[in-house]
């Protein structure tokens, strides 16, 4: 099947369509008054102003002035609400939710080790998806072999620490080779299914009872990180008031952000090189590149390996920062969250994964902390029949899912990306 039932007609300007930004402002306004507690309201206000200006400039082309008006009113209301919140939250104890604490938690996570793991994983995905157009849905598998490569070689094979690190970085190369040979010649969706299946196979195998002696079963492996901890030069944690890191986390973020910086430098260099240009052309038109005499398969394989090594690095770092490797950490969700981070920042941009991971964790941790506080205590802000504290921890994932959908529909290039550079039109 070569043709698809997509109607690729250019968006004809029809008077029957409301202005898109009017709808956006309405949605942001509604979200501001309900889900996001005012955070989206200023944006709703701004969008509504833009929409109104556009509609007034060409009233015969657009409808939806009413929608934009409603969006503006909701946006203003929400913004007022947001200001009241913030003032009350920061200045007084009148609210059961400590806004300062929410921001602190969010910032801590956005700058902390978790964001680093996602940034590294997303850098790998950026090479796969952003630059080469390979739809790797098995980044969790690359992370898992990195993490288990380290843990198994130190705990079970009793290699020295740096030997474990080398194995952790070689394991993703092996996985990329094994996975790449059958799948790189296939269409994007086949690659997606094959990689997600491979990642699940690895997770199930690492967690299985039968292989408990080698991989520690569902409890995983511990006791390999002592050399890493021993290298910690810090005597104390860091407390700047708005962020606070323990001694261990401080060491981890030092190592982690250095790794991220070096990785970004490498990606920046590679993507400016002729090699990087070939990758981008493969994303745009594989056949054209092939007709120029390039070995497309080899380039794709190199990209898969390189991105996979970054995935392995993410797994390695995750294993080091929490000093234990548990198969449940490498479920497919982590791949999808890393994709979300990448798409927030903008695929095919060097700094996209970094920005995306930081923003993703800021939002996730902020939402988690806000709803956690709003549902805890003897007299919670949120009535328990609407939301209890276990449900509160799910809101952020519901928002993530919705966010991923909206992002992909309305702004696939993310915050910093270029729409023409995203490999989303092919199959």
């Amino acid at each position, binding site marked *: *099947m070569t043709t698809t*039932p*997509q109607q*690729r007609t250019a968006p004809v300007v029809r008077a029957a369509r409301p202005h898109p930004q009017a709808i956006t402002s309405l949605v942001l306004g509604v979200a501001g008054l309900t889900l996001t507690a005012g955070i989206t309201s200023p944006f709703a206000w701004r969008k509504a102003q833009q929409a109104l200006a556009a509609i007034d400039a060409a009233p015969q082309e657009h409808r939806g002035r009413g929608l934009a008006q409603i969006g503006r009113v909701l946006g203003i209301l929400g913004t007022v609400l947001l200001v009241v919140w913030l003032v009350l939250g920061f200045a007084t104890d009148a609210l059961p939710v400590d806004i300062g604490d929410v921001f602190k938690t969010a910032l801590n996570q956005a700058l902390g080790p978790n964001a680093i793991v996602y940034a590294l994983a997303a850098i790998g995905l950026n090479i796969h998806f952003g630059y080469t157009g390979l739809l790797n849905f098995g980044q969790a598998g690359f992370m898992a072999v990195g993490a288990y490569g380290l843990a198994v070689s130190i705990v079970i094979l009793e290699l020295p620490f740096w030997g474990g690190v080398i194995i952790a970085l070689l394991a993703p190369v092996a996985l990329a080779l094994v996975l790449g040979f059958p799948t790189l010649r296939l269409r994007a*969706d086949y690659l997606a299914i094959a990689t997600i*299946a*491979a990642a699940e196979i690895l997770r199930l195998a690492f967690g299985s009872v*039968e*292989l408990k002696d080698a991989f520690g079963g569902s409890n995983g492996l511990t006791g390999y990180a002592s050399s890493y901890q021993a290298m910690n030069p810090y005597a104390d944690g860091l407390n700047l008031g708005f962020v606070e890191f323990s001694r261990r986390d401080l060491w981890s973020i030092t190592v982690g952000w250095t790794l991220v910086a070096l990785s970004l430098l490498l990606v920046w260099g590679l993507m400016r090189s002729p090699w990087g240009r070939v990758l981008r052309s493969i994303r745009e038109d594989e056949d054209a590149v092939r007709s120029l005499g390039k070995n497309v398969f080899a380039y794709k394989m190199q990209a898969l390996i390189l991105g996979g090594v970054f995935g392995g690095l993410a797994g390695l770092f995750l294993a080091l920062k929490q000093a234990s490797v548990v198969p449940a950490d490498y479920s497919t969700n982590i791949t999808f969250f890393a994709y979300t981070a990448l798409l927030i920042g903008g695929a095919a941009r060097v700094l996209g994964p970094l920005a995306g991971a930081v923003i993703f964790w800021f939002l996730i941790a902020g939402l988690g902390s806000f709803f956690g506080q709003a549902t805890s205590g003897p007299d919670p802000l949120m009535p328990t029949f609407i939301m209890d504290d276990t449900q509160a921890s799910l809101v952020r994932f519901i928002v993530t899912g919705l966010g991923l959908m909206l992002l992909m529909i309305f702004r696939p290039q993310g915050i910093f990306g270029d729409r023409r550079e995203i490999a989303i039109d092919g199959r």
Partner: protein
Amino acid sequence: MLQRLLTLLALLMVLLMPVAAAHAGDETESPAPSPSSEPAPRPDGPYVTVRLVDKDNGDAPVAGVTLTVVSEAGEEIASAATDADGRIIVPIPALGIYTVSLDETTLPDGIKLSASVASEIEVRAILDGANGGLFPIGTQEVTTVTFGERFITALTSGVKFGLIVALAALGLSLIFGTTGLTNFAHGELITFGAIMTYVFNRGMGMPVIVAGVGAVLLSALFGWVQERGLWRPLRKRGTGLVAMMIVSIGFALLLRNVYQYTIGSSRKSLSQYVSQSRRDYGPISLADKELSIIVIALVTIIIACILLMKTRLGKAMRAVSDNPALSASSGMRVDGVIASVWILGTALTGLSGVLLAINSQVNFLMGFKLLLLVFAAVTLGGLGTIWGALFGSMVIGIMVEVGPLFGVPSSIKEVGALVVLILVLLIRPQGILGRRERIG
């Protein structure tokens, strides 16, 4: 677009609302153990009380089995037979660690301990009163020992599982065939059927069969709403297939967490047909519900196939799947056909969820766990072909269930199917019944 999305979301919330009610009054999930009629007298001092349950039989208490309590020093304190509640109560002279062992010869006729469980447990007596322990044993029937019989049992459950997968795979394959969408939210459509059965059954008190029918109808409606509210507008905007795939991932995440939000993360049982004893049909022994599942799935698949092969609508679906542009230019309403495909596809998928709920339990992750197996089945048979989906599902179902007999570790029996998925991509990427042109 956004309005439609929000409407979709609101509708979903409303649909799931009754669950909250069901959730509230539904704390007795596992069948409550029957209270023993005559509670044994409790001794005054410290005592050890152990309850013997059969974990392979829904934690049913095992009565009349002799348990012996031995102190840390190896001194035998007492032996006692378990009462109707599977409990023994043995006074102990001092606090400490006691070992409770089981006399296998006193097990009820026809069962023996399965190989993987220990025949003794340790009880730490630290309280000057009851020091309780649960003694879970696994049992298996003594009679089924020959390989042939085990093979037939595994084959039967493989066929049953394969048919359930086939319903979902048929749905996925239909939707993929006509729209080209690799729908990662398909697992959540399976869960939708199961959860709606649970809502109608536990939340509204309907009998399971009525609840199941309702859930299938609602699944069909959900499919239509999804198509109208999400996927058709995306097609109209000219959104690429990869973008749609990522949208479906977001949708899956959203749905999965909404499910968990509403019904919680524990496993839920329906009110009827939870445990049934098996009947013998020649060499095969099946519970009534298993037989019904097989028959319902088989009949539905046959009807769906006849519908696709014989009726006008079926022909239209196959035509659109073959060449949408040509179908449109020969006067077919492609959008209408796609809408009916979504309705049919999600109804079939919902039915597989209903059957899965009746077969075992309801959980927010159940569909997601099945998703990759459904993908494996569809890929094995050939993405987008009807017969391929059916064939692939049967192979996958049987392989998953029979695999452990041939040395596949049973804790990871799904892995075999996923390995096959990757091997098929290596050797014959278009699938066994697929056409070569389908791959790019």
